[in-house]
Protein backbone atom coordinates (compact mmCIF):
# COMPACT_ATOMS: atom_id res chain seq x y z
CA UNK A 1 0.00 0.00 0.00
CA UNK A 2 2.63 2.52 -1.07
CA UNK A 3 1.52 6.11 -1.06
CA UNK A 4 3.08 9.53 -1.45
CA UNK A 5 2.88 12.00 1.40
CA UNK A 6 3.79 15.56 0.45
CA UNK A 7 6.27 14.37 -2.18
CA UNK A 8 7.88 11.59 -0.14
CA UNK A 9 6.94 8.00 -0.92
CA UNK A 10 6.00 5.85 2.09
CA UNK A 11 5.61 2.07 2.05
CA UNK A 12 2.18 2.18 3.64
CA UNK A 13 -0.14 4.84 5.03
CA UNK A 14 0.22 3.75 8.68
CA UNK A 15 1.95 6.29 10.94
CA UNK A 16 2.14 6.08 14.74
CA UNK A 17 0.99 9.41 16.13
CA UNK A 18 3.05 11.83 18.14
CA UNK A 19 2.96 11.36 21.91
CA UNK A 20 2.15 7.67 21.77
CA UNK A 21 5.38 6.39 20.27
CA UNK A 22 8.12 8.31 22.08
CA UNK A 23 11.07 8.65 19.74
CA UNK A 24 10.52 5.09 18.46
CA UNK A 25 13.21 3.47 20.61
CA UNK A 26 10.94 1.53 23.00
CA UNK A 27 8.96 0.09 20.08
CA UNK A 28 12.14 -0.83 18.21
CA UNK A 29 12.78 -3.31 21.02
CA UNK A 30 9.43 -4.96 20.26
CA UNK A 31 9.40 -5.21 16.46
CA UNK A 32 11.20 -3.93 13.38
CA UNK A 33 9.79 -0.41 13.14
CA UNK A 34 10.97 -0.13 9.52
CA UNK A 35 7.69 -1.78 8.54
CA UNK A 36 5.98 1.56 9.27
CA UNK A 37 5.28 4.19 6.65
CA UNK A 38 6.98 6.55 9.09
CA UNK A 39 6.19 7.73 12.62
CA UNK A 40 5.67 11.10 14.22
CA UNK A 41 7.94 11.61 17.18
CA UNK A 42 7.09 13.15 20.54
CA UNK A 43 6.17 16.85 20.42
CA UNK A 44 9.45 18.74 20.70
CA UNK A 45 9.99 22.25 22.00
CA UNK A 46 13.01 24.56 22.08
CA UNK A 47 13.86 23.84 25.70
CA UNK A 48 13.58 20.71 27.82
CA UNK A 49 10.20 20.41 29.56
CA UNK A 50 9.05 18.24 32.46
CA UNK A 51 5.42 18.89 31.64
CA UNK A 52 2.44 18.94 33.96
CA UNK A 53 1.91 17.62 37.48
CA UNK A 54 0.58 14.09 38.03
CA UNK A 55 -1.94 12.53 37.60
CA UNK A 56 -1.69 13.07 33.87
CA UNK A 57 -3.93 10.18 32.82
CA UNK A 58 -7.65 9.50 33.36
CA UNK A 59 -9.36 6.48 31.87
CA UNK A 60 -12.64 6.65 29.94
CA UNK A 61 -14.91 3.85 28.66
CA UNK A 62 -13.58 4.22 25.11
CA UNK A 63 -10.29 6.00 25.51
CA UNK A 64 -8.37 8.16 27.91
CA UNK A 65 -7.69 11.75 28.85
CA UNK A 66 -4.08 12.85 29.04
CA UNK A 67 -2.45 16.00 30.20
CA UNK A 68 1.24 15.30 29.84
CA UNK A 69 2.12 18.87 28.89
CA UNK A 70 4.74 18.23 26.22
CA UNK A 71 7.39 16.54 28.31
CA UNK A 72 10.43 16.35 26.04
CA UNK A 73 14.21 16.77 26.26
CA UNK A 74 14.32 19.88 24.03
CA UNK A 75 15.25 20.11 20.37
CA UNK A 76 19.04 20.15 20.82
CA UNK A 77 19.00 16.94 22.88
CA UNK A 78 16.68 15.37 20.30
CA UNK A 79 19.08 16.26 17.49
CA UNK A 80 22.31 15.39 19.31
CA UNK A 81 21.29 12.44 21.47
CA UNK A 82 18.01 10.91 20.32
CA UNK A 83 18.24 10.99 16.52
CA UNK A 84 21.65 9.21 16.43
CA UNK A 85 20.08 6.40 18.50
CA UNK A 86 17.05 6.31 16.21
CA UNK A 87 19.32 6.10 13.16
CA UNK A 88 20.52 2.69 14.37
CA UNK A 89 17.01 1.20 14.30
CA UNK A 90 14.97 3.25 11.82
CA UNK A 91 16.18 3.77 8.27
CA UNK A 92 13.35 5.86 6.83
CA UNK A 93 12.51 9.56 7.05
CA UNK A 94 10.84 10.34 10.38
CA UNK A 95 8.16 12.95 10.99
CA UNK A 96 9.22 15.61 13.50
CA UNK A 97 6.46 16.98 15.70
CA UNK A 98 7.18 20.59 16.61
CA UNK A 99 5.56 22.65 19.34
CA UNK A 100 6.16 26.10 20.72
CA UNK A 101 4.97 28.95 22.88
CA UNK A 102 5.50 31.72 20.34
CA UNK A 103 5.68 32.09 16.56
CA UNK A 104 9.43 32.59 16.94
CA UNK A 105 9.86 29.37 18.93
CA UNK A 106 8.09 27.30 16.28
CA UNK A 107 10.38 28.81 13.64
CA UNK A 108 13.52 28.30 15.72
CA UNK A 109 12.77 24.63 16.43
CA UNK A 110 11.80 24.04 12.79
CA UNK A 111 14.99 25.69 11.56
CA UNK A 112 17.13 23.40 13.73
CA UNK A 113 15.25 20.27 12.62
CA UNK A 114 15.42 21.35 8.97
CA UNK A 115 19.15 20.52 9.02
CA UNK A 116 18.56 16.87 9.99
CA UNK A 117 18.66 14.43 7.07
CA UNK A 118 16.71 11.83 9.05
CA UNK A 119 13.67 14.08 9.18
CA UNK A 120 11.25 13.88 6.28
CA UNK A 121 8.39 16.12 7.36
CA UNK A 122 7.74 18.74 9.99
CA UNK A 123 4.39 18.28 11.70
CA UNK A 124 3.60 21.57 13.38
CA UNK A 125 1.49 21.03 16.47
CA UNK A 126 -0.74 24.09 16.87
CA UNK A 127 -3.28 22.04 18.77
CA UNK A 128 -1.86 20.74 22.06
CA UNK A 129 -4.60 21.33 24.64
CA UNK A 130 -2.33 20.77 27.63
CA UNK A 131 -0.12 23.82 27.73
CA UNK A 132 -1.01 27.38 28.59
CA UNK A 133 -0.05 30.26 26.34
CA UNK A 134 0.76 28.07 23.37
CA UNK A 135 -0.39 24.93 21.63
CA UNK A 136 -4.10 24.98 20.94
CA UNK A 137 -4.39 28.73 21.46
CA UNK A 138 -2.54 29.13 18.13
CA UNK A 139 -4.64 26.54 16.36
CA UNK A 140 -7.93 28.19 17.29
CA UNK A 141 -7.35 31.36 15.27
CA UNK A 142 -6.99 31.17 11.46
CA UNK A 143 -4.76 34.27 11.39
CA UNK A 144 -2.32 32.92 13.98
CA UNK A 145 -2.35 29.47 12.38
CA UNK A 146 -1.44 31.11 9.06
CA UNK A 147 1.28 33.19 10.69
CA UNK A 148 2.94 30.10 12.19
CA UNK A 149 2.65 28.25 8.88
CA UNK A 150 4.40 31.09 7.04
CA UNK A 151 7.08 31.45 9.73
CA UNK A 152 7.93 27.75 9.57
CA UNK A 153 7.78 27.59 5.78
CA UNK A 154 10.29 30.44 5.64
CA UNK A 155 12.96 28.42 7.49
CA UNK A 156 12.60 24.94 5.99
CA UNK A 157 12.57 23.17 2.68
CA UNK A 158 10.96 20.09 4.20
CA UNK A 159 7.20 19.55 3.81
CA UNK A 160 5.26 21.34 6.52
CA UNK A 161 2.19 19.58 7.89
CA UNK A 162 -0.01 21.61 10.23
CA UNK A 163 -1.63 19.55 13.00
CA UNK A 164 -5.07 20.89 13.76
CA UNK A 165 -7.24 20.99 16.85
CA UNK A 166 -10.84 19.78 16.89
CA UNK A 167 -11.62 22.23 19.71
CA UNK A 168 -12.63 25.00 17.32
CA UNK A 169 -15.88 26.32 15.86
CA UNK A 170 -14.90 25.85 12.23
CA UNK A 171 -11.96 23.57 11.48
CA UNK A 172 -12.33 24.12 7.73
CA UNK A 173 -11.51 27.84 8.05
CA UNK A 174 -8.31 27.00 10.01
CA UNK A 175 -7.38 24.33 7.46
CA UNK A 176 -7.84 26.77 4.58
CA UNK A 177 -5.85 29.47 6.34
CA UNK A 178 -2.93 27.03 6.72
CA UNK A 179 -3.20 25.97 3.07
CA UNK A 180 -3.25 29.58 1.90
CA UNK A 181 -0.17 30.30 4.03
CA UNK A 182 1.75 27.56 2.23
CA UNK A 183 1.22 24.40 4.29
CA UNK A 184 2.12 21.25 2.36
CA UNK A 185 -0.29 19.07 4.32
CA UNK A 186 -2.61 18.90 7.30
CA UNK A 187 -3.02 16.37 10.07
CA UNK A 188 -6.11 16.07 12.22
CA UNK A 189 -7.52 15.68 14.74
CA UNK A 190 -5.56 16.30 17.92
CA UNK A 191 -7.35 15.38 21.15
CA UNK A 192 -10.72 16.71 22.24
CA UNK A 193 -10.64 18.78 25.41
CA UNK A 194 -12.26 16.77 28.19
CA UNK A 195 -12.29 16.05 31.90
CA UNK A 196 -13.21 13.47 34.55
CA UNK A 197 -13.95 13.80 38.27
CA UNK A 198 -12.88 11.47 41.04
CA UNK A 199 -16.13 10.37 42.70
CA UNK A 200 -14.42 9.94 46.07
CA UNK A 201 -12.77 13.36 46.29
CA UNK A 202 -15.14 15.37 44.09
CA UNK A 203 -12.12 16.82 42.31
CA UNK A 204 -10.85 16.48 38.73
CA UNK A 205 -8.70 13.35 38.28
CA UNK A 206 -6.18 15.17 36.08
CA UNK A 207 -3.89 17.52 38.03
CA UNK A 208 -4.25 20.11 35.26
CA UNK A 209 -8.04 19.60 35.59
CA UNK A 210 -8.69 19.26 31.85
CA UNK A 211 -6.87 17.21 29.27
CA UNK A 212 -7.05 15.79 25.78
CA UNK A 213 -9.52 12.97 25.18
CA UNK A 214 -8.42 10.34 22.67
CA UNK A 215 -9.20 6.76 21.74
CA UNK A 216 -11.95 4.92 19.85
CA UNK A 217 -14.63 7.17 21.37
CA UNK A 218 -13.51 10.10 19.20
CA UNK A 219 -13.24 8.16 15.92
CA UNK A 220 -16.59 9.28 14.41
CA UNK A 221 -15.82 12.93 15.23
CA UNK A 222 -12.36 12.61 13.71
CA UNK A 223 -13.72 10.94 10.61
CA UNK A 224 -16.28 13.72 10.11
CA UNK A 225 -13.64 16.45 10.45
CA UNK A 226 -11.20 14.68 8.12
CA UNK A 227 -14.03 14.39 5.57
CA UNK A 228 -14.91 18.08 5.87
CA UNK A 229 -11.33 19.26 5.59
CA UNK A 230 -10.29 16.84 2.82
CA UNK A 231 -13.18 18.10 0.72
CA UNK A 232 -12.22 21.73 1.26
CA UNK A 233 -8.46 21.75 0.59
CA UNK A 234 -6.11 20.62 -2.18
CA UNK A 235 -3.25 19.43 0.03
CA UNK A 236 -2.88 15.96 1.60
CA UNK A 237 -4.67 15.28 4.86
CA UNK A 238 -3.42 12.81 7.47
CA UNK A 239 -6.41 11.43 9.36
CA UNK A 240 -6.23 10.46 13.01
CA UNK A 241 -8.38 10.17 16.09
CA UNK A 242 -9.28 6.85 17.67
CA UNK A 243 -8.02 4.69 14.80
CA UNK A 244 -7.60 1.20 16.24
CA UNK A 245 -7.98 -1.31 13.41
CA UNK A 246 -7.32 -1.90 9.73
CA UNK A 247 -10.98 -1.16 9.05
CA UNK A 248 -10.65 2.18 10.81
CA UNK A 249 -7.69 2.95 8.54
CA UNK A 250 -9.81 2.04 5.50
CA UNK A 251 -12.60 4.34 6.70
CA UNK A 252 -10.18 7.23 7.17
CA UNK A 253 -8.90 6.70 3.62
CA UNK A 254 -12.52 6.65 2.38
CA UNK A 255 -13.08 9.97 4.16
CA UNK A 256 -10.29 11.47 2.09
CA UNK A 257 -7.14 10.91 4.13
CA UNK A 258 -3.86 10.29 2.29
CA UNK A 259 -2.29 8.63 5.33
CA UNK A 260 -3.51 7.65 8.78
CA UNK A 261 -2.01 8.11 12.22
CA UNK A 262 -2.56 5.67 15.06
CA UNK A 263 -2.19 7.02 18.57
CA UNK A 264 -3.86 5.82 21.73
CA UNK A 265 -4.23 2.25 20.42
CA UNK A 266 -0.42 1.89 20.69
CA UNK A 267 -0.64 2.35 24.44
CA UNK A 268 -2.99 -0.59 24.93
CA UNK A 269 -1.63 -2.89 22.25
CA UNK A 270 2.00 -2.03 21.52
CA UNK A 271 1.87 -4.25 18.42
CA UNK A 272 -1.23 -2.63 16.90
CA UNK A 273 0.59 -0.81 14.05
CA UNK A 274 2.41 -3.98 13.04
CA UNK A 275 -0.86 -5.94 13.11
CA UNK A 276 -2.71 -3.31 11.08
CA UNK A 277 0.05 -3.13 8.44
CA UNK A 278 0.06 -6.93 8.13
CA UNK A 279 -3.71 -6.97 7.71
CA UNK A 280 -3.65 -4.17 5.11
CA UNK A 281 -0.94 -6.02 3.17
CA UNK A 282 -2.71 -9.37 3.33
Amino acid at each position, binding site marked *: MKTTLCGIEIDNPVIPASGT*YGYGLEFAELYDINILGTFSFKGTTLNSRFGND*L*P*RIAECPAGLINSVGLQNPGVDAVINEVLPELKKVFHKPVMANVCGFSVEEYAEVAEKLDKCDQIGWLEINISCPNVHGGGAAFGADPKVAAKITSAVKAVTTKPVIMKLSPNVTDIVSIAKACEDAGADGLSLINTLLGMRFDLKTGKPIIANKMGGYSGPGIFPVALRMVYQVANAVNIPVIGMGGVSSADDVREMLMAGATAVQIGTANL*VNPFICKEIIEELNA
Partner: protein
Amino acid sequence: MKQSVFSIIENKPLTSNVYKMVLSGDTSEITKPGQFVNIKIDGTFLRRPISVCDYDENTLTLIYKVVGKGTEILSIMQSGELDILTGLGNGYDTEISGNHPVLMGGGVGVPPLYALAKKLISENKTVDVLLGFNTDDEVFYAKEFADLGCNVTVCIADNCRNSEYKNGFVTAYLPENYTHFYTCGPEPMLKAVYNATNTEGQLSFEERMGCGFGVCMGCSCKTITGYKRICKDGPVLLKSEIIF
Protein backbone atom coordinates in the same frame (compact mmCIF):
# COMPACT_ATOMS: atom_id res chain seq x y z
CA MET B 1 8.82 -6.65 27.47
CA LYS B 2 6.72 -9.40 26.02
CA GLN B 3 3.04 -9.72 25.18
CA SER B 4 1.65 -13.19 25.80
CA VAL B 5 -1.41 -15.11 26.85
CA PHE B 6 -1.58 -16.57 30.36
CA SER B 7 -4.09 -19.11 31.70
CA ILE B 8 -5.68 -18.63 35.09
CA ILE B 9 -4.89 -21.57 37.38
CA GLU B 10 -6.26 -20.14 40.60
CA ASN B 11 -7.90 -16.94 41.82
CA LYS B 12 -8.90 -16.83 45.46
CA PRO B 13 -9.48 -14.19 48.13
CA LEU B 14 -6.84 -13.76 50.85
CA THR B 15 -8.87 -11.12 52.72
CA SER B 16 -12.19 -9.38 52.06
CA ASN B 17 -10.79 -7.44 49.10
CA VAL B 18 -7.32 -8.82 48.36
CA TYR B 19 -7.00 -11.69 45.88
CA LYS B 20 -4.26 -14.05 44.86
CA MET B 21 -4.16 -15.11 41.22
CA VAL B 22 -1.84 -17.81 39.90
CA LEU B 23 -1.36 -18.01 36.14
CA SER B 24 0.60 -20.18 33.78
CA GLY B 25 2.43 -18.78 30.78
CA ASP B 26 5.70 -17.47 29.44
CA THR B 27 7.52 -15.67 32.28
CA SER B 28 10.87 -15.44 30.49
CA GLU B 29 10.83 -11.64 30.42
CA ILE B 30 10.47 -11.35 34.20
CA THR B 31 14.04 -10.96 35.36
CA LYS B 32 13.87 -9.24 38.76
CA PRO B 33 11.59 -9.06 41.79
CA GLY B 34 9.75 -5.74 41.91
CA GLN B 35 8.82 -5.71 38.24
CA PHE B 36 5.17 -5.54 37.20
CA VAL B 37 2.84 -6.84 34.52
CA ASN B 38 0.13 -4.97 32.61
CA ILE B 39 -3.11 -6.91 32.12
CA LYS B 40 -5.78 -6.38 29.47
CA ILE B 41 -9.16 -6.84 31.10
CA ASP B 42 -12.33 -7.13 29.03
CA GLY B 43 -14.53 -4.20 30.01
CA THR B 44 -11.88 -1.58 30.67
CA PHE B 45 -9.96 0.48 28.12
CA LEU B 46 -6.52 0.65 29.69
CA ARG B 47 -4.50 -2.28 30.96
CA ARG B 48 -4.11 -2.74 34.71
CA PRO B 49 -0.54 -2.63 36.07
CA ILE B 50 -0.04 -5.15 38.89
CA SER B 51 3.20 -5.99 40.70
CA VAL B 52 4.64 -9.48 40.44
CA CYS B 53 4.41 -11.32 43.77
CA ASP B 54 6.24 -14.45 42.67
CA TYR B 55 7.30 -16.22 39.51
CA ASP B 56 9.10 -19.29 38.29
CA GLU B 57 9.73 -20.69 34.81
CA ASN B 58 6.09 -20.98 33.85
CA THR B 59 3.92 -19.63 36.64
CA LEU B 60 3.15 -16.11 37.73
CA THR B 61 1.60 -15.17 41.07
CA LEU B 62 -0.16 -11.83 41.48
CA ILE B 63 -1.76 -10.42 44.61
CA TYR B 64 -4.06 -7.49 44.00
CA LYS B 65 -6.62 -5.43 45.84
CA VAL B 66 -10.04 -4.72 44.37
CA VAL B 67 -10.01 -0.94 44.04
CA GLY B 68 -12.18 -0.31 41.00
CA LYS B 69 -13.92 -1.75 38.00
CA GLY B 70 -10.88 -3.45 36.44
CA THR B 71 -9.76 -5.32 39.55
CA GLU B 72 -13.37 -6.18 40.33
CA ILE B 73 -13.76 -7.86 36.93
CA LEU B 74 -10.43 -9.62 37.52
CA SER B 75 -11.53 -10.87 40.94
CA ILE B 76 -14.49 -12.82 39.60
CA MET B 77 -12.52 -14.64 36.88
CA GLN B 78 -12.11 -18.27 37.89
CA SER B 79 -10.64 -19.55 34.65
CA GLY B 80 -9.80 -18.40 31.16
CA GLU B 81 -7.00 -16.51 29.51
CA LEU B 82 -5.52 -13.05 29.94
CA ASP B 83 -3.44 -10.92 27.55
CA ILE B 84 -0.51 -9.77 29.68
CA LEU B 85 2.57 -7.62 29.05
CA THR B 86 5.41 -9.00 31.17
CA GLY B 87 8.86 -7.81 32.14
CA LEU B 88 7.86 -4.20 32.86
CA GLY B 89 9.82 -1.91 35.15
CA ASN B 90 13.32 -2.07 36.57
CA GLY B 91 12.70 -4.14 39.71
CA TYR B 92 14.71 -4.33 42.92
CA ASP B 93 18.49 -4.64 42.87
CA THR B 94 19.73 -7.22 45.40
CA GLU B 95 23.43 -6.70 44.71
CA ILE B 96 23.61 -3.62 46.92
CA SER B 97 21.61 -5.03 49.85
CA GLY B 98 24.47 -5.89 52.19
CA ASN B 99 24.06 -8.91 54.47
CA HIS B 100 21.11 -7.67 56.54
CA PRO B 101 18.43 -5.96 54.45
CA VAL B 102 15.07 -4.91 55.90
CA LEU B 103 11.90 -5.11 53.81
CA MET B 104 8.88 -2.93 54.60
CA GLY B 105 5.55 -3.44 52.88
CA GLY B 106 2.30 -1.60 53.37
CA GLY B 107 -1.02 -3.25 52.46
CA VAL B 108 -1.11 -4.20 48.83
CA GLY B 109 2.52 -3.02 48.65
CA VAL B 110 3.50 -6.26 50.38
CA PRO B 111 3.31 -8.66 47.38
CA PRO B 112 6.38 -7.55 45.36
CA LEU B 113 8.52 -7.99 48.47
CA TYR B 114 7.81 -11.73 48.47
CA ALA B 115 9.89 -12.61 45.38
CA LEU B 116 12.47 -10.15 46.65
CA ALA B 117 12.68 -11.88 50.05
CA LYS B 118 12.98 -15.23 48.29
CA LYS B 119 15.92 -13.95 46.24
CA LEU B 120 17.68 -12.35 49.22
CA ILE B 121 17.28 -15.54 51.29
CA SER B 122 18.73 -17.56 48.39
CA GLU B 123 21.71 -15.20 48.54
CA ASN B 124 22.20 -16.21 52.23
CA LYS B 125 21.26 -12.84 53.67
CA THR B 126 19.53 -12.14 56.99
CA VAL B 127 16.17 -10.76 55.93
CA ASP B 128 13.92 -8.79 58.30
CA VAL B 129 10.41 -8.19 57.00
CA LEU B 130 8.01 -5.59 58.43
CA LEU B 131 4.50 -5.94 57.09
CA GLY B 132 2.14 -3.03 57.73
CA PHE B 133 -1.64 -3.27 57.58
CA ASN B 134 -4.44 -1.02 58.77
CA THR B 135 -6.34 -3.66 60.75
CA ASP B 136 -5.89 -7.28 61.90
CA ASP B 137 -8.24 -8.68 59.29
CA GLU B 138 -6.27 -7.14 56.41
CA VAL B 139 -3.16 -9.23 57.15
CA PHE B 140 -1.95 -11.65 54.46
CA TYR B 141 1.25 -13.53 53.62
CA ALA B 142 2.91 -13.22 57.07
CA LYS B 143 3.31 -17.01 57.24
CA GLU B 144 4.60 -17.21 53.66
CA PHE B 145 7.41 -14.77 54.45
CA ALA B 146 8.24 -16.66 57.66
CA ASP B 147 8.33 -19.95 55.73
CA LEU B 148 11.01 -18.47 53.46
CA GLY B 149 13.18 -17.94 56.54
CA CYS B 150 12.59 -14.22 57.10
CA ASN B 151 12.18 -12.58 60.51
CA VAL B 152 8.65 -11.27 60.19
CA THR B 153 6.98 -8.51 62.20
CA VAL B 154 3.37 -7.64 61.43
CA CYS B 155 2.46 -4.07 62.33
CA ILE B 156 -1.15 -2.97 62.68
CA ALA B 157 -1.87 0.75 62.41
CA ASP B 158 -5.31 0.77 63.94
CA ASN B 159 -6.74 -1.14 66.92
CA CYS B 160 -4.43 -4.17 67.01
CA ARG B 161 -6.07 -7.07 68.86
CA ASN B 162 -3.98 -10.07 67.80
CA SER B 163 -1.16 -10.58 70.32
CA GLU B 164 1.16 -11.87 67.62
CA TYR B 165 1.05 -8.48 65.90
CA LYS B 166 2.63 -5.19 66.94
CA ASN B 167 0.80 -1.93 67.33
CA GLY B 168 1.85 0.98 65.12
CA PHE B 169 3.66 1.71 61.88
CA VAL B 170 6.47 -0.36 60.37
CA THR B 171 8.93 2.50 60.90
CA ALA B 172 8.69 2.01 64.68
CA TYR B 173 10.10 -1.52 64.40
CA LEU B 174 13.21 -1.00 62.27
CA PRO B 175 15.89 -3.48 63.38
CA GLU B 176 19.33 -2.37 64.50
CA ASN B 177 22.27 -2.55 62.14
CA TYR B 178 20.31 -3.17 58.95
CA THR B 179 22.42 -2.67 55.85
CA HIS B 180 19.84 -1.57 53.26
CA PHE B 181 16.08 -1.19 53.00
CA TYR B 182 13.44 -2.09 50.44
CA THR B 183 9.88 -0.79 50.56
CA CYS B 184 6.60 -0.72 48.69
CA GLY B 185 3.36 0.83 49.84
CA PRO B 186 1.19 3.94 49.73
CA GLU B 187 3.10 7.20 49.25
CA PRO B 188 2.65 8.51 52.84
CA MET B 189 4.28 5.30 54.05
CA LEU B 190 7.13 5.63 51.54
CA LYS B 191 7.72 9.14 52.82
CA ALA B 192 7.74 7.93 56.45
CA VAL B 193 10.19 5.15 55.55
CA TYR B 194 12.35 7.66 53.68
CA ASN B 195 12.53 9.84 56.81
CA ALA B 196 12.98 7.02 59.33
CA THR B 197 15.81 5.16 57.61
CA ASN B 198 19.52 5.92 57.79
CA THR B 199 20.89 3.78 54.95
CA GLU B 200 20.51 3.72 51.19
CA GLY B 201 17.35 1.93 50.12
CA GLN B 202 14.94 1.20 47.28
CA LEU B 203 11.38 2.48 47.18
CA SER B 204 8.77 1.21 44.75
CA PHE B 205 6.24 3.80 43.55
CA GLU B 206 2.73 3.54 42.23
CA GLU B 207 1.15 5.90 39.69
CA ARG B 208 -1.69 6.09 37.18
CA MET B 209 -0.18 4.85 33.92
CA GLY B 210 -1.15 5.15 30.28
CA CYS B 211 1.00 2.54 28.59
CA GLY B 212 3.23 0.98 31.28
CA PHE B 213 6.22 0.69 28.94
CA GLY B 214 7.66 4.17 28.76
CA VAL B 215 6.17 5.92 25.75
CA CYS B 216 3.26 8.08 26.91
CA MET B 217 5.00 10.09 29.67
CA GLY B 218 1.89 9.68 31.81
CA CYS B 219 3.77 8.71 34.98
CA SER B 220 6.91 10.85 35.01
CA CYS B 221 8.52 12.16 38.18
CA LYS B 222 11.42 14.43 39.00
CA THR B 223 14.48 12.89 40.63
CA ILE B 224 17.94 14.17 41.54
CA THR B 225 19.25 12.27 38.52
CA GLY B 226 16.68 13.77 36.13
CA TYR B 227 13.16 13.03 34.94
CA LYS B 228 12.16 9.40 35.30
CA ARG B 229 9.21 7.36 34.10
CA ILE B 230 7.77 5.35 37.00
CA CYS B 231 6.83 2.55 34.58
CA LYS B 232 10.11 2.23 32.67
CA ASP B 233 12.91 3.79 34.75
CA GLY B 234 11.05 2.76 37.96
CA PRO B 235 8.91 1.70 39.69
CA VAL B 236 11.89 1.24 42.04
CA LEU B 237 13.90 4.37 42.80
CA LEU B 238 16.90 4.76 45.09
CA LYS B 239 16.42 6.78 48.26
CA SER B 240 19.38 8.95 47.24
CA GLU B 241 17.73 10.06 44.00
CA ILE B 242 14.22 10.77 45.29
CA ILE B 243 12.82 14.27 45.69
CA PHE B 244 9.84 14.21 48.07
